[in-house]
Structure formats: C-alpha cells, structure tokens
C-alpha cells in the first residue's frame, strides 16, 4: 500500500491510515456536491448541444428541447440521488462523464436522424427512423435503471465473487447464443456479423452483457488461482511457463469465446475479449511472460486469420489502401472475395478532414454521407461537426473514465475488486482504441460499438452497468475505515456502515 500515497488522492487518504503516521487523518468526503455541480455542467453542455443541432439544421431550437431535455436531466439527477443513497463514497467524476457521453450520443443520433427529414439539409439515413432518438432515450433510461439496479444488488464487490463460475457459464452462453440461433434472428443486416438476437423489430446484442459476466468470471477465477498461476512451471527459452493443469479452464474459456466470435464474424469483439483476458491475467500474476505469450498468440492468430479468412485479409488491404478506387467502389464481380469495400472508411476520413480543427458546427456538416454513421462511425460524425477540438475532448473524457476506474482499482484493497476494476477499465480503453483507431485509419477497422455514443441499446445498458461496477468498487475503496475515536482512552466508538 505504500505506493498509494504517491497518488495524492482523496481515495488514498481513506485507506492509507498507516498506524505509523502520527498526523491527523482528514475526514474523507464523498464529494457528492462536486458530483452534482459537474453533472449540472454536463447536462448544460448536452442541452446546449441539442439546441445547437436545431439552430444548425434549420435555424430553430428543437421543439423537443423542453420534453427530451428535461427527461434527460431528470434521468441523470435520479442516478445522482441513487448514488447518494447507495454509494455515497463513490468517485464523483464517473457519473458526470458518463452522462456527458450518453447525452452527446443522444444529441448526435438526433442530428443524424434529422438529416434530410423535416426539410433539413442532407439525405435521410435509411437505417434510422424518425423515432430513433426516442428509442435511444428509452434505452438510456433502461441503462440508468440497470446502473441503479447494479448498485442496489451489488452492495459489496465481493458479492460478485461468489458467482464466479455461474457468471462464467452465463457469459459464455450469452456470447455463444447468436451463433447457435438461425441467421434470420442473429445476423446484423449489411454487416455479415451474427451477433444479435432480433425478435419482432426489437434486438439486443447479448455479447455486450457477456463481456461483463466474463470479466467477473476472469477476475474471480484468476484471484482464486493467482498464487498457483504465478508458480513457474517449465522454463522454455528463458520464459517461465505456467503448469498446464492450472491453465485449462481459462484457456478453454478463451478459446471457446474466440472460436464463437470468429464463427460470428465479429473480429473486434474477439480482440476485445482476448485483450481483457490477457491484461487481467497479467495483473493477477504480475508476470510479463504472460503478456509475451498472449501477444505472440494474438499476432499469430491475426496473421493466420488474415491468410485463411479472406474477410480479414481484405480488412488489411482496406486499411493500407482506403482511397484506392477498387477498394472504395468494391468490385462485386469478384466472387471469391466477399465485398467489403472501403467506401465507409473513406467517407469517414473525408468527414474528419472536412471538419478540420474546429469542425463545421453541429448540423452544418454532412456526416450522413458515411454509411452506418450512427453506429460504428459515430466518432467521425463528431470529428466532422465538432472538429479536432471536439474529438480530442471526447477522447479525454474516455481517458478520464479509464483513469478513474484504474484509480479505484489501485485504491481498493480486495484483490478481486482490484482485478475486476482494472480489467473493466482496460476494456473500455481497448474498446475506444479499437473503434476510434479503426475509423481514423490508425489500425485495421473492426466494427465494435463506441461506448455510450453509438446507436443501440445493449452497448449503452452494458456501459452503464460497467460504470456502476466501477463506482461500487470506488465506493468501497474510498469508504472511510472504521475509525477509532480517542476519548481520553475511555470509550471507543466504531463508525461504519
């Protein structure tokens, strides 16, 4: 715990009550007031952005500002009140950051939905309807309800540890479900990926929740086995390999999820799961050899996939030559290669370039030119209309969420909670890196959702649940330890919950 002092954080003061220190311990504060002020600021930013969309599109403040705006504000205030009751010591920054992202996502989805509709400039996006924003607001409500429910049910992080294997099975089942269902139910139109369960116009992507369940499973399993996993087995080329019998269940879980995901043609999520697993393994064992083994495994897998699965090879080709005519306007005459043109990537890049440093302003760009801009490519819509400035702000918001999560991981005592918070925070960072890096041509594009921003309910609800788990862990970390009150050595009152 000696390293905690270096963090210089309020959370640290709660736990760093080293008996050797003779100084007065400051009373830790929940900082719920600060959270409320920052939340109000986030809501203001969202409402101004919403008004700005209307002014940019047709010169009028949107008529829904009163209803939708007030609904959104009330929703976030409800989340804040729930935190006051359920997790009073939790990190004050996470809720305002999540609210800001969710709100800006709603605003951008509204802006994209309005393009070409109601006399606004642009072409209507055929994959969106006039009620998409309303649906997304309903999903936001469900997300906040799930957020509160997680805080309500999981009163201690350790509670989750009890369900390690149950959640492992549930997680695997959720991930495997779409692969087992017929394509008519599980295929996402226009992408070739089988990742959803669609019934009667209502669809969810179970893997988003599977990700959370598997994170709990990995944390629970690795914490239980970390001493064994840290033991050196055979040494091969100077690297200490673990014993095969310790690795069995984890390797099976990993291989199964990987196979299922490749079977579902969803490389992005596959990479995400593997990254999450690898990092948690590293944190649990602190053995760099795991990272080397895992990374080699991943690179070998990626190389093999690019050679064996034409779909993957094409992604590499597109990444390297996104503006080549043959790629942009995919030649459907070639029957051997599935047609995954770079048209979408090129349009997204054009949008980013068009936005430049300061952006066109909300409602003034043409993000609707990019296919499916409301889901995987929503970050390019922000880049186009809010510019480099807005995009950097969004990335910093994500960065702050990740670092606050990491801070909770460092601060909390319970190893299980530590591992879970670290794994979830890293997963957010990796997800943002994969999708933002993909649409900005930094890495080959693999379609995954942008947390909180993309259209779609499952990702949004799952993201809120992740924030709830992180807040529960930070609440545990920052909660003041039962503090002895010295009253002339006569009585000792124990405060606590």
């Amino acid at each position, binding site marked *: 715990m000696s390293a905690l002092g270096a963090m210089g954080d309020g959370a640290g003061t709660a736990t760093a009550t080293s008996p050797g220190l003779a100084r007065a311990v400051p009373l830790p504060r929940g900082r719920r007031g600060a959270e409320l002020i920052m939340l109000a600021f986030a809501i203001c930013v969202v409402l101004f952005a919403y008004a700005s969309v209307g002014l940019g599109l047709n010169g009028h403040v949107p008529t829904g500002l009163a209803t939708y705006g007030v609904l959104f504000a009330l929703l976030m205030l409800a989340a804040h009140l729930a935190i006051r009751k359920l997790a009073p010591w939790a990190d004050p920054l996470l809720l305002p950051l999540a609210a800001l992202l969710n709100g800006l996502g709603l605003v951008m989805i509204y802006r994209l939905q309005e393009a070409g509709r109601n006399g606004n400039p642009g072409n209507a996006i055929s994959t969106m309807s006039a009620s998409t924003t309303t649906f997304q607001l309903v999903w936001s409500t469900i997300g906040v309800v799930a957020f509160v429910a997680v805080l309500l049910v999981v009163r201690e992080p350790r509670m989750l540890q009890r369900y390690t294997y149950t959640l492992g099975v549930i997680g695997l089942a959720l991930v495997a479900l779409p692969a087992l269902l017929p394509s008519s139910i599980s295929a996402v139109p226009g992408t070739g990926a089988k990742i959803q369960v669609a019934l009667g116009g209502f669809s969810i992507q179970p893997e988003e929740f599977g990700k959370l369940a598997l994170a709990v499973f990995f944390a629970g399993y690795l914490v239980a086995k970390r001493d064994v996993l840290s033991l050196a087995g055979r040494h091969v080329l100077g690297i200490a390999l673990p014993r095969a019998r310790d690795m069995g269940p984890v390797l099976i879980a990993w291989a199964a999820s990987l196979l299922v995901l490749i079977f579902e043609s969803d490389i992005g999520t596959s990479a995400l799961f593997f990254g999450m697993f690898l990092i948690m393994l590293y944190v649990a064992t602190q053995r760099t050899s795991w990272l080397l083994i895992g990374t080699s495994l991943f690179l070998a897998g990626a190389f093999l996939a690019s050679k064996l699965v034409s779909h993957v090879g094409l992604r590499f080709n597109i990444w390297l030559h996104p503006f080549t005519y043959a790629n942009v306007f995919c030649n459907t005459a070639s029957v051997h290669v599935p047609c995954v043109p770079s048209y979408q990537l090129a349009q997204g890049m054009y949008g980013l*370039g068009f936005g430049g440093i300061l952006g066109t302003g909300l409602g003034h760009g043409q993000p609707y030119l990019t296919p499916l801009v409301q889901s995987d490519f929503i970050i390019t819509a922000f880049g186009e209309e809010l510019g480099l400035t807005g995009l950097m702000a969004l990335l910093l918001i994500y960065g702050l969420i990740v670092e606050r999560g990491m801070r909770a991981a460092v601060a909390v005592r319970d190893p299980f909670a530590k591992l879970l918070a670290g794994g979830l925070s890293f997963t957010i960072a990796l997800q943002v890196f994969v999708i933002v890096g993909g649409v900005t041509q930094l890495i080959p594009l693999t379609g995954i959702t942008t947390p909180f921003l993309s259209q779609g309910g499952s990702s949004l609800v799952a993201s809120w649940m992740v924030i709830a788990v992180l807040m529960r862990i930070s609440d545990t970390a920052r909660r003041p330890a039962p503090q002895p009150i010295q009253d002339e050595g006569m009585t000792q009152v124990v405060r606590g919950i």
Partner: protein
Amino acid sequence: MNRALRRVSLACLAMFLLLLVNVNYVQGFEAGKLADYPGNGRTFAQQYQYQRGSIITSDNVPIAASKHVPGIYSFQRYYPEGATYAPVTGYDTPYSKTGIEQAEDKLLAGTDPRLAVRNLIDLVTGKPRKGATVQLTVNSAAQKAAYQALKATGLPGGAVAIDPKTGAILALASYPSFNPNKLATLNGNALNKADQRYLNSPQQPLLNRAINETFPPGSTFKVVTSSAAFSSKYTPDSRFYAPTNLKLPGTTHQLINYDHSPCNDGSNPTGNGTVPLIYAFTVSCNTVFGGLGMKLGGSALRQQANAFGMNQELTIPLKVSASQYPPVSNPDYTAYSAIGQYSDTVTPLQEAMFAAGIANHGTLMRPYLVQKVIAPNLSTLVITKPSELSHTVSPAVAAQVSRMMADVVAQPYGTAHSMVANLGGITVAGKTGTAQNGANNTGLDDAVFTGFAPVANPQIAVGVVVKGGGLGADASAPVAAAIIKAYINYLNSPAKR
C-alpha cells in the same frame, strides 16, 4: 498487483496518446490531402461555404450575387435580372459554370493567387474568405433595351453593342434566354429538372446567340466589300454596271436583287446602265456588289474580312465563335460571298465589329466584357486597358464607308430609313441585311443589321441578327434603334456618373 495496474494505466494512457496524435494528424495535417481526393463529396459543398463575389454592370447594377441561406450550403447564388443578363453572367451550379461565372471563377471564388495575401490576412484575423467583385463593361440601359427588343420580335436572335472607341461591350443579349436562378438551386432534383428542361428545349435557351451562333451576314457584308473597294481605287461615286439580273460566269445561275427589283436611281431606267456605288449601297443592289466582288477578287475580300476580325476566335473573356469568310476563288462564289451569302457566317458580335471598325476611323478595338475586378477590401485588382485588335481601313476610307452607311438611314430611299422614326433625332449610320439561308435558301430570311451612332461622334456600334426575321429593316433595325436610343439617352441623362 498495484505495480501491474499502474503499468496497465500507462498502457491505456499510451493508447489514448496514440489516438490523440493520430486524430491531430488526420484532421490537422492530412485534411487538405483528403479534400483533394476525387471521390470526396464533402469538398463539393465547400465551394458554397464562402461568399462568392458579385458581378455588377458598369453602372453598378448587381446582376449576380451570393446570399446567405441556412443549411450545409451557406451561400446561394442568385441573379436579380435573370434572363436579361444570362448570356453574360452564365450560371453557377455545383456541377458546372458558364459565362463570366466560369471565365472569372477563381477571382469570384476568391481562390485566385492575386487574392492569396488577402486570404492569409483574413485567416489570421478570423474573417471568412470572400470573393472579388467583377465589374463588367455592360450598360444596364443598353442591355435591358437589347433583351426587351429581341424578346419583342418573338424570334431567336442576338444583339451586341460595343463602344467603338474602346471595344467595351455595352450590351450582349440573346433570345430565347434562360433563368440562371433555376440552375443556381442547391436542390439536386430541382437542378436536374431545370437542366434537362433547358437542354432538351428545341429553342436552345442555353445557346448564347450573341457570340456562339453564326448566321449569314447578307447585305451587311457590303460594308466589308465597300471597304475593300475604297482601299483599292474606287470611291462612293464610282459608277458600276447595275443589271436587274447578273449572269454569273461559268454557271447558269443569275444573281438577282431582292424581289427582282431593278437598281435604278433615275439614271438606269433600262436596268442595263450604271449607278454610283453609294446609291447601290443605300438601296442594297446585289448585282452591283456581286460584280464589284468579282473585280476585287476573293483574296482581297478575305483579307478585308480578316481585318474586321473574321476567321478568328476571340476571348472576351467568354469564348466567341469565329465568324467565317472561307477562301474562295471561283468568280461566281466570289460574287455570292461579296454580298454576304455563300459560306459567309457571322456572330452578332461580328456585326457590331463591322460598324465599330468604321466608326472608330478604321481602328478596330479589341472587344472586352470585364472592366475591372475589385478585391473585397475595395482595392482594384485588375483593370482592362483598351487595346487595338486591328486596322480595318484608313481613316479616309472609313469616312467614305461611314458616309454611305449614313445614307442608308438618312435617305428616304435607304433601306433602313424607317428606323428614323424610332430614334428621336439621333443620327445613325448602318446597313441592313436580309440573308437567305437553309437548304436551297428555303429557310426564312434572317434579318441582320450593323450600325453606329451618332454619325458625327460615334458612341455606340451595334450588331443585330434576328433569325427568320425577314427584312433587316423590319426585324433587326428596330432592335438596333432601341439599343442606340437607350444608350444615348443614358449618356445624356443627369443620372450618369
């Protein structure tokens, strides 16, 4: 585990740094390159993000301007005077431009290198880029009169007026014209509809008849034949054989006067004697000029035609189709070409240049349309200095041709005497033409007129062609009279600068 968590935090930080650096590269440095890709549809709309410069007449009437509109296209082009000036302004659509809009595009758009320093200052001071204003030589009174008079005939035709002293084009009208506002729409469907309608119209409204359609000059070419004659050894008083029908050598064809009328000034009652050239010019005897042409020869006529600007394309800066006087050697064809038939073709601008070459004492000034270009800061960027195009005839010969042209209008027996009634005391020198055309001359005769005014001190030279208008005096001379009267009245009005 904290050491590993801290390392993972750093890895997350590195991922976000990579993303930040990459978006800075894409949106900050690569934006220009992205904008230049041919498939980039967003760049398309960018040309409407800045205020394009106006086009104004010499008397400061705006004829093309950009107004601010809501939506992705910030500015829309509009043409306050519509069809009247359409042959001059042309149109400005997202796909193509014509007229001055095309010829002066870079200055109007503000991308011309001569505006680069100005643009840099604007960039630093944060002012939006603005295009330069193009001031034309066109006079609003003359232009309006020209278009209205052409429209009144109800027939296709063109009219051009130039200042003979400078070559400045005072009017350039074509009928039927088009409404450039219909093509300046930013609605793709409306644009396509208007475009198809104009393109498929049998009336060819997009054709600029003033400079891009050629017609047989008919008897107006006698100005050229006379100029060549006086430049050799003849004078207006030289007498020439004036038969009613002229037998052409080597063929069975006979050259006849209009309506088979005899050429009789009182001294040639039998149709077998001679008349002075000035009489033959005034009443437009074909037989006299046919004979004169054969005496002068095809090459002398061609040389004289070239001196008036025929057989060459001009850029004013609009592209002007070349008026043709092809080489001719057969005596019979020379006779026809001397009266403006055979393969002679001229634009209405060429008709105005015939008169201007005489009016300016034998010096033909180069016709031009742009008077000056004014930068957004009101400094003058470009100013056109009048320059000579060619020497048509000696001042003495010009005086002789001028005397004959004056008689055409002033003498009661002159072919254009009827226009005196419309002139309000302004003296005009001119020549009518009634040009046969079509296969075997079965088409309706084109009415042609060339002339200048006032005779003593020429201020304006006009050329008019009305397709199928019949007698030059009936259809074209009234158009010329309307233009001359409007312009001379403008010069004499107190409103003039």
